[in-house]
């Protein structure tokens, strides 16, 4: 890929990671990149004291990066800034799209019992009673490819019991993780199946994050999404 450099330390090999799912994954975004899951695994494995001492990342302008056991890509953007990320794909597979509604009940009982409240407004305001809709992806398995250290990738991924949103309500449960070698897969093949900076891919650019935490605005840069047809195939 033009202008792109891959840092692939010794001992890293192409890997295939499969999540065997027990429940539909609730997510507004279908990308679900592997490095996001591994970063979460790294966070979970941190000693509790170290985790408690970390600054709350929401309010950091540029969040610190975990050192993941994956190869990195680097590219110099049109503005001269260096962009980098991890060599891994978005989630691949074939899934049915659906919707789950999460009910938020209004606590009429406790309000009657414990307060002197007169008029309440369950139909408006931040506490309003709603059935919150969240899109779901229904599949028996999702697959990712990456270049990394197999033992360390397996160690990080195994501590993740569920993926997507609403995990605390039983969505996106992973029954079993499978990590194996993927002979014949190259870093270029993998990078075609992930979001990349607009400097190295043609297409409609939009401000998106290129490495975890993906929801953080500090990670945003001009990016182009991969061709969906490359991702919607059985892993």
């Amino acid at each position: 890929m033009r202008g792109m450099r891959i840092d692939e330390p010794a001992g890293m090999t192409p890997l295939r990671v499969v999540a065997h799912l027990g429940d539909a994954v609730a997510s507004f975004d279908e990308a679900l990149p592997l490095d996001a899951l591994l970063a979460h695994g790294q966070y979970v494995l941190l000693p509790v004291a170290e985790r408690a001492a970390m600054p709350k990342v929401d309010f950091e302008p540029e969040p610190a990066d975990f050192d993941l056991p994956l190869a990195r890509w680097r590219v110099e953007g049109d503005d001269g800034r260096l962009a980098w990320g991890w060599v891994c794909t978005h989630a691949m597979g074939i899934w049915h799209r659906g919707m789950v509604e999460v009910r938020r009940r209004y606590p009429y009982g406790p309000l009657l019992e414990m307060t002197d409240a007169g008029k309440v407004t369950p139909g408006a305001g931040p506490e309003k009673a709603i059935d919150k809709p969240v899109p779901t992806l229904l599949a028996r398995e999702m697959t990712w490819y990456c270049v990394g250290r197999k033992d360390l990738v397996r160690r990080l991924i195994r501590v993740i019991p569920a993926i997507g949103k609403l995990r605390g309500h039983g969505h996106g449960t992973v029954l079993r993780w499978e990590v194996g070698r993927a002979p014949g897969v190259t870093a270029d093949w993998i990078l075609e199946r992930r979001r990349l900076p607009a400097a190295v891919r043609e297409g409609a650019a939009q401000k998106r994050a290129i490495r975890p935490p993906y929801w953080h605005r500090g990670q945003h840069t001009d990016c182009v999404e991969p061709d969906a047809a490359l991702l919607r195939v059985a892993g």
Partner: protein
Amino acid sequence: MNKHGKLEMRVTTLEALHHGAGSSGNTALLRTEDVILDDGRRAKVPFVSGNTVKHMIREAGVRHALSVLGLDRLSVPVVHLLFSGGHLSKTGGAGVDMRRARRLSEVFPILGLCGFSAGNVMTDSKVRCSKLHLVCEENRWRLPADCLEMPHAAQRSGAYRGEEMGTRREPTHSAHVRALLSDADRKLLDDGATEKLEASRAGEASERGASAQMIFEHEVLLPGARLFGTIGYHGLGDMELAALVAALSYACDGAHPGGGLLYRFGARSSVGMGLCSVQFEGAAKRLIGVPEFEPSDEVLPAVGNAGDAAMVAYVEHLRKYRDEIVTTLEQSA
């Protein structure tokens, strides 16, 4: 020492269970989810949402703590914070008050356990409740090994679905109730009934004399159905684990002769539906106390294993920080 683990749940419905989503006519429908079968087709299978289990823990844990603290009058924002998890109410522009959120989690562990939003801070839940899935053929691919051996695993989910019918009587049909009405209201009812009868004879509809009488139906999971699920917890301090145990003990309705603990899931539990026997497996299992229902006027069940040191410490903790809990809740909500 922070604790991680999970409680496996094996659930047997002892009464019809209705966990609903929508209605058709006057039948309340069971909530179902799509699953992909081994041959690639999709099927709809009833389940109980993890949200239900999580809310049971939150509400029971909060009620237990409030009863220990002797608190029965609260402000509206505090009720929302305790029973619904609260909401973000301030922007982070003026800085994030992490200290208050951290302190609130420390002094009132049930909030730290279940997660909350207050001021400009949103904390994650440390407890993860799975859905309760039906042991049936459609779910075979995700059944735990012990459930695979159950004969239920060979039956389609339809074998465990049924309907419960009920009626609501028009109260004024009772002579005792009619005697309570004013003369004017009684005349109105009689006029309405006469008009309705005449309209009926003429083959016309009448809106007069609308009755509260109705027949209703609920789709249900039949008694004897089996479900499975887990309650996972991560990074719990001693007080938070005690809060989880207290919540599960407080929500418990007693012990089943078969060895399980009794809980109620789904709708219409006040008329006997949704009673289930839950067999727990996991490190925290031995800590869950069965309430003792004494033949006395004391309504609240005893909570937790009274002799358990962790539970005693938890109750002492709540009492010790009572004033600070009240102040911090009011400031945070």
